[in-house]
């Protein structure tokens, strides 16, 4: 049986507001337990929530960026359930009238095509606190620092058809919220978390299969692995004659398996109703326009500009535009070097693999955009060859200074003096007289292969510094001659 996979995602993004969504407490991560919890965050009797305007602004910004309908009359609702780290016994969220309605986000697939993923809605809500189970010998500690941190929950349509597409969507969303400056995207600290709804159906079937929700997956890699393992579980189950039951499941990275948390029947009845402590939020047109004016250039526009302005391929443009930091880095390198294709190549390939190896993000890159741009200038003016450039790049990565300093110190300046190259070539040919004889005796086809040998010897003799173009030209002349 051919199976089709159907995936929809709920992404919880923590908004980078100065203070919490309904109180004046700070939202800094990692403070001593319960030091960032005010009377409101503690759910003290008699306290009341007051909505943080900055959170509303961020949500609207997001809505505009995904071309969504903005809920100009949106309402906060209470989601009622008991849990020790939920101080009021309810979470303030949005149910029927969210702040962001239907929108969409384009993702670039591996084959370079673009797919549009629907966003059903996005709503504002407050985060809960944390239960700490270690260090309290049989007891549970409650840290309410996180309680009341603003979250924007972004719900997608079931538009993704593979784990890879799902990851591409999360990456694109991750890039977008960072572009907008509304979320720091730090998945390790839980600033961006993902619930994955997964189902399968026989290819060609219109109705969806029964879905399972994998809760709280917090890295791109785990999202892919969790979804794939869940897909396989569902296929095995059905092919063995079983049935998928609607469930909430948890992914265990150690076993690479998902396991059941609770079934639909055990799910809470949250008894949603509009929060009487908060008035409906009315978003006026002027506010919308004001917010629209603050939108930065977003990945799709940036990608298109990179293609038209710099002549980059769709793939290269998509990759470079995928994060604001990378795009900024790239543009700086271009502005210094004046060569977009060369810049794209170096940023994506050499810098990419360096960052990968060191496990750092581009904003912590050991080689700065100024350094890289300066080095590309030296490639362009023939001071160094591409090959030498890799040595210079390594030097920059090791903190040896600018490209010019490294070229100077290590004497890597390319030899372009044709006299010097000629005499060096003479030495090489003399040392390889036998091969010269063979070359001259050989036919055109064989010569082609043998020519490379001489180039190699020549570059070796010059320690890579001879200008490869000149070497080629002079060598050819000497061998033919």
């Amino acid at each position, binding site marked *: 049986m051919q199976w089709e996979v159907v995936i929809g995602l709920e992404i919880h993004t923590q908004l980078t507001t100065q203070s919490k969504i309904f109180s004046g407490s700070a939202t800094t991560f990692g403070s001593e337990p319960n030091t960032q919890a005010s009377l409101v965050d503690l759910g003290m*009797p*008699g306290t009341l*929530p007051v909505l943080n305007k900055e959170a509303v602004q961020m949500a609207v910004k997001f809505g505009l960026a995904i071309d969504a309908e903005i809920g100009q009359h949106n309402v906060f609702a209470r989601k009622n359930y*008991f849990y020790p780290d939920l*101080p009021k016994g309810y979470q303030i969220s949005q149910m029927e009238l969210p702040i962001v309605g239907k929108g969409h986000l384009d993702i670039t697939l591996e084959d370079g095509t673009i797919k549009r993923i629907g966003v059903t809605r996005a709503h504002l809500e407050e985060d809960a606190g944390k239960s700490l189970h270690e260090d309290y010998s049989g007891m549970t500690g409650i840290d309410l620092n996180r309680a009341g941190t603003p979250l924007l929950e972004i719900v997608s349509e079931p538009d993704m058809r593979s784990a890879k597409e799902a990851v591409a969507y999360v990456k694109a969303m991750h890039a977008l919220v960072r572009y907008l400056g509304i979320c720091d995207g730090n998945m390790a600290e839980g600033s961006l978390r993902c619930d994955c709804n997964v189902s399968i159906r026989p290819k060609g079937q219109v109705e969806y299969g029964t879905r399972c929700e994998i809760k709280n997956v917090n890295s791109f890699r785990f999202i892919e692995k969790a979804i794939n393992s869940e897909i396989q579980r569902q296929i095995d189950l059905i092919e063995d004659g079983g049935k998928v039951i609607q469930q909430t499941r948890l992914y265990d990275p150690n076993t690479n398996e998902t396991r059941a948390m609770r079934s639909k029947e055990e799910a809470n009845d949250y008894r949603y109703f509009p929060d*009487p*402590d908060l*008035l409906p939020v009315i978003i006026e047109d002027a506010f919308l326009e004001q917010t629209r004016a603050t939108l930065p250039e977003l990945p799709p526009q940036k990608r298109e500009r990179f293609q038209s302005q710099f002549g980059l391929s769709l793939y290269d443009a998509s990759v470079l535009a995928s994060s604001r930091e990378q795009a900024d880095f790239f543009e700086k390198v271009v502005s210094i070097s004046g060569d977009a294709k060369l810049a794209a190549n170096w940023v994506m390939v050499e810098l990419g693999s360096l960052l990968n190896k060191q496990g750092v993000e581009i904003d912590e890159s050991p080689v700065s955009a100024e350094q890289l741009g300066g080095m590309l200038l030296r490639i362009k003016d023939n001071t160094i060859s591409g090959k030498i450039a890799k040595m210079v790049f390594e030097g920059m990565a090791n903190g040896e200074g600018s490209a010019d300093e490294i070229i100077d110190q290590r004497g890597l300046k390319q030899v372009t003096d044709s006299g010097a190259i000629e005499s060096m070539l003479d030495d090489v040919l003399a040392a390889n007289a036998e091969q010269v004889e063979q070359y001259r005796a050989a036919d055109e086809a064989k010569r082609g292969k043998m020519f490379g040998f001489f180039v190699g010897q020549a570059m070796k003799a010059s320690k890579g510094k001879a200008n490869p173009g000149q070497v080629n030209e002079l060598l050819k002349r000497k061998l033919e001659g």
Partner: protein
Amino acid sequence: MHQMTLAEIARGLADKKFSSEELTRTLLARIAQLDPQLNSFITVTEDLAITQAQAADARRAAGETGALLGAPLAHKDLFCTKGIRTSCASKMLDNFKAPYDATVVASLAAAGTVTLGKTNMDEFAMGSANESSHYGAVKNPWNLDHVPGGSSGGSAAAVAARLLPGATGTDTGGSIRQPAALTNLTGLKPTYGRVSRWGMIAYASSLDQAGPMARTAEDCALLLQGMAGFDVNDSTSIDEPVPDYSAGLNASLQGLRIGVPKEYFSAGLDPRIADLVMASVEALKKLGAVVKEISLPNLQHAIPAYYVIAPAEASSNLSRFDGVRFGYRCEDPKDLTDLYKRSRGEGFGPEVQRRIMVGAYALSAGYYDAYYLQAQKIRRLIKNDFMNAFAEVDVILGPTTPNPAWKIGAKNADPIAEYLEDFYTITANLAGLPGLSMPAGFADGLPVGVQLLAPYFQEGRLLNVAHQYQQVTDWHTRSPAGF
């Protein structure tokens, strides 16, 4: 001294006839002597009162003036008071000392009032008889076998018994006006949003409103002046200028249009009360008012709608009392579920548990539309009724309650019978309108109240009408025997 109204106290203090400390000590002694009969206080804050009285006297000596400077009062025990037990008359919060002051408490303190204590009430403000308190029932000073009404029954009994001149109350379905009527007081529920709810432990957030309870409309004006105003901490408070309530008291009632709804005179109304209501209408006519029969066609739906909305909100508001962070926690919980079940089962009394269950049911999946949404629709209809009525009249007049105070225990077997006592008061909460109850006579020695309702933010008009009425009647000056 204890017979003085707030206005008289203000004049006495201004004329240096006595100090706030002398007055405070007199009243504290009176509370110690008489309150055991009434049970109107949960906590008497003697030390705080003396300190505040001395501070008020010092402020006055330094040249400060103000109608509330040095005025003694008490707060219903659901207003948070910093460092002082704030119990909501519940075992759940018997050990709870609030870490902050409610805005109402802070504003009145800033005006120089002296807090004598925290008054008894129905548990979490749920009741109309003040019988559901963890600290025992409050007695009506007019007849100690009778209830004082509720839920602000402690405030009502204490002021009626001249233990102090005024107190704060809260009104979710009649909890200021109904006990005021049953104890011969003047009580005002302001427009929803007029007084901050910050620090007022919530029963039903969309209905709760704090207000003053005193013996005269003039005193209610003084207290409301100290309570009303916008508060950034309460998103539902309204940024509307606060008028000078005392300045408007003496306006003439010439041409005032009074509407009397025909639906008010239904079978449930004690005929003695109906007669007293009509007598009050006659008195107002003599003052120049014109009277008109009006209709509030959806009145009959008010109680069912209220008993869906209020419990629904309460079921959520009271979720925070879970034994985890503050309040009562059961002994030796076996696990988390046991902790929740027993802490709440042992900490809440039966009426509170009943309303939590009703509310949770009304909000549950599959019932929400039929109950909660339907009730909200009725709420809109009731509001529309009032809007239509206020297009024709300036105030609406009727009985505050269908019956005078009943015997303690008389309605315990039938909660619905007690719910029906709020028949006339509940609509003002559902519509968010201001309402006032004023003394209008007696039925076999038990006080009877008349209720006035006005359009939004017309508290001044209510106080004006009541004050003018009190200039030509003396019901409000009568004190219960033995107090």
